[in-house]
């Protein structure tokens, strides 16, 4: 039987970026807060110190900082006619585990999403007519405008120490920045990172072609920085060990060096690690949560933690899983088109990029950071770009970055090179320094069949049904990726490489090779309980003392990385709890 613990104001499930932001904001507001993190404690010293953290085999290949699929995973199928099977090794995406969550091992790319993203259905219908959005594409508007969220985007950028260059200052275009971005009230807290040689080439050639290149906003600190909370970041050393690693130099904006220590400094905050939440407990009306049940995975003992507010701040996938396991809201049924919990799962198609090989150029790919890059947004944030040319909805960003040049994972070779043996060895030695990539990242629109539900067969280590994911790329995705790939290839040819590979085309989605840890939707936000799980304050429509924070709330996926709005929405939700819910508990919308 579960041991019943003392009631607190707030219990937070998962202590990464969103949990850390809520913990720090709510604890500083004087609320009693307990955070339950299923993984271990993590700190820069000793967990991310060199040379330990530069172990590519342990952290990149074997996913040393990530979710253990032997305990919990999901099942996957491309289409409803198939039987879903468990994902027994991580591949396509890498959910975090441990204090700091995926915020420890992210790359640091920090966008504000576009004004189109904030009002996608309205924008496409007004501009292209109602018939332009296919009937099975469940595009919907965000329940808050970009302007409403702007101060919270700013707050997150200051917390995480984002390096970048403003492109739209209160409506005034700023050359050198992203002139297509939504208006910002002020510049980034830090200047852009240094460009590498490949980025300079791309900057020049895309400018010649009439596009608008700019430095990609990066939570890799271009110089030492003290954030508004007094957290100190070091300067990035361009070591190329961001994604899949913790930062040895405290230069990557991460929750374990910013918001989490702020919470930990408060006596009204308590962190319990190795604490695996299996269920949110509801009262007999199913309209109110009484707390959560969790297991201490070091002892197997079960506890009940009563709380006035439950904040689900786990990885986007696990937030949805917990809602379904707990019976919060109506599960989505793709066939009957009923319910909401599980709908609008989206991902982020890549694959349209090109790799260029030059006999006469040296790129030094080991000088790298997770997020630095030179991007053109002419085919995504640019509202004037005619989507009819692309034949699809959304868009694609085109970027030259260099997240790493690590010896196991980074082995670019020209087309036609044998996959192994002496010829491969010769080619990999020759081309390691002489290759650059132009990447294409496409947005992803929701489809009625791309969704989660509970698996009928497979169970996790606690005997609970696994989450089942049904997902595939669709015609829209193929068109957007193809269009972006063609533009990337045109720019590549202008650089006159010795040879190039790509652009690739999109087939069925595979969950095996890494693509991105940008899983969105499943518990989406919206203006009505008919088509959303949570309201504009990320508060459950059905159980008003449950808040579900993170990328699970996105109704679609942008061509941008998710962490900017994830952080902004966490501050926005914390603000609503502190200043509205606390005074008058109950539905906020």
């Amino acid at each position, binding site marked *: 039987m579960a041991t019943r613990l003392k009631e607190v104001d707030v219990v937070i499930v998962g202590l990464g970026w969103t949990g850390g932001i809520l913990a720090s904001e709510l604890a500083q507001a004087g609320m009693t807060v307990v955070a339950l993190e299923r993984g271990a404690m993590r*700190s*820069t*010293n*000793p967990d991310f*110190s*060199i*040379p330990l953290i530069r172990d590519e085999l342990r952290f990149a290949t074997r996913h040393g900082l990530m979710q253990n699929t032997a305990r919990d995973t999901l099942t996957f199928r491309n289409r409803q006619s198939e039987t879903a099977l468990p994902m027994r090794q991580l591949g396509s995406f890498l959910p975090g585990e441990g204090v700091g969550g995926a915020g420890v091992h992210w790359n640091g790319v920090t966008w504000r999403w576009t004004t189109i993203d904030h009002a996608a259905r309205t924008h496409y219908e007004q501009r292209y007519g109602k018939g332009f959005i296919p009937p099975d594409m469940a595009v919907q508007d965000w329940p808050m405008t970009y302007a409403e969220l702007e101060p919270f985007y700013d707050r997150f950028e200051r917390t995480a120490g984002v390096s970048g260059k403003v492109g739209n200052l209160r409506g005034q275009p700023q050359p050198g920045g992203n002139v297509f971005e939504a208006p910002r009230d002020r510049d980034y807290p830090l200047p852009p990172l240094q460009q590498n040689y490949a980025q300079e080439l791309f900057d020049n050639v895309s400018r010649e072609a009439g596009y608008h290149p700019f430095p990609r906003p990066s939570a890799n600190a271009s*110089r*030492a*920085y*003290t954030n508004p909370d007094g957290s*100190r*970041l*070091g*300067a990035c*050393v*361009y*070591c190329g060990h961001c994604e899949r690693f913790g930062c*040895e*130099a*405290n*230069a990557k904006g991460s929750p374990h*060096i910013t918001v989490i220590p702020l919470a930990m400094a408060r006596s009204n905050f308590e962190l319990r690690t190795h604490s695996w939440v299996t269920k949110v407990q509801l009262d007999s009306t199913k309209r109110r949560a009484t707390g959560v049940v969790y297991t201490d995975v070091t002892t197997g003992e079960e506890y009940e933690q009563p709380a006035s507010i439950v904040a689900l701040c786990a990885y986007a996938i696990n937030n949805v899983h917990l809602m379904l396991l707990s019976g919060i809201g109506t599960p989505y049924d793709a066939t009957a088109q009923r319910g909401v919990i599980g709908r609008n799962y989206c991902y982020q198609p890549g694959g349209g990029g090109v790799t260029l090989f030059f006999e006469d150029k040296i790129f030094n790919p080991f000088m790298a950071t997770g997020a630095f890059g030179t991007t053109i947004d002419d085919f995504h944030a640019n509202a004037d770009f005619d989507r009819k040319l692309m034949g699809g909805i959304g868009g694609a960003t085109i970027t030259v970055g260099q997240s790493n040049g690590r010896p196991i994972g980074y082995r670019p070779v020209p087309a036609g090179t044998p996959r192994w043996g002496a010829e491969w060895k010769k080619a990999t030695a020759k081309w390691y320094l002489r290759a650059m990539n132009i990447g294409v990242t496409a947005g992803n629109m929701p489809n009625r069949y791309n969704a989660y539900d509970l698996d009928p067969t497979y169970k996790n280590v606690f005997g609970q049904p696994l989450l089942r994911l049904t997902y595939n790329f669709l015609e829209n995705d193929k068109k957007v990726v193809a269009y972006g790939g063609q533009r990337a290839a045109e720019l590549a040819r202008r650089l006159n490489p010795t040879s190039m590979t790509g652009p690739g085309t999109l087939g069925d989605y595979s969950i095996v090779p890494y693509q991105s840890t940008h899983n969105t939707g499943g518990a989406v936000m919206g203006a009505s309980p008919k088509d959303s799980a949570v309201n504009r304050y990320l508060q459950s429509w059905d159980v008003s003392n449950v808040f579900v924070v993170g990328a699970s709330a996105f109704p679609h996926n942008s061509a941008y990385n998710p962490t900017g709005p994830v952080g902004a929405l966490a501050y926005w939700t914390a603000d609503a709890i502190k200043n509205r819910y606390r005074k008058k508990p109950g539905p906020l919308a």
Partner: protein
Amino acid sequence: MTSARAWQFGLVAAALVAGGSLAPTRAADLERGKASFDKCAACHGLGGEADLDGPTLKDVMGRQAGSLEGYRYSAAMKRSGVTWTTMTLDAYITDPQEFIKGNRMAFAGIADQAERADLIAYIEQASKAAP
């Protein structure tokens, strides 16, 4: 100091003296040094802090490298045989991995000699003044 290290350090010191970089031609600018210390402050304090990622720099001058009680140093730092002085700190901050190979400080170094001089002057002053 092991003989090999001593020999190596002797060369570094000799090179620095020969280059004239240790002969102060200008008074250290403590304000600039304080600003430069931002580069260190993500990991190091000057007042005896035990909760930061790097060892405190309180009373660092004259301290044997890798000797602070309670801080877990790399073997390289403990073995270095270095004593922290203006000269050794200058060599270390110029290129940390070159001066003590295999140490754990994640810092690229400061190439500008004047900036290092200001920084070290500030560290020397502030680490002594700390309570």
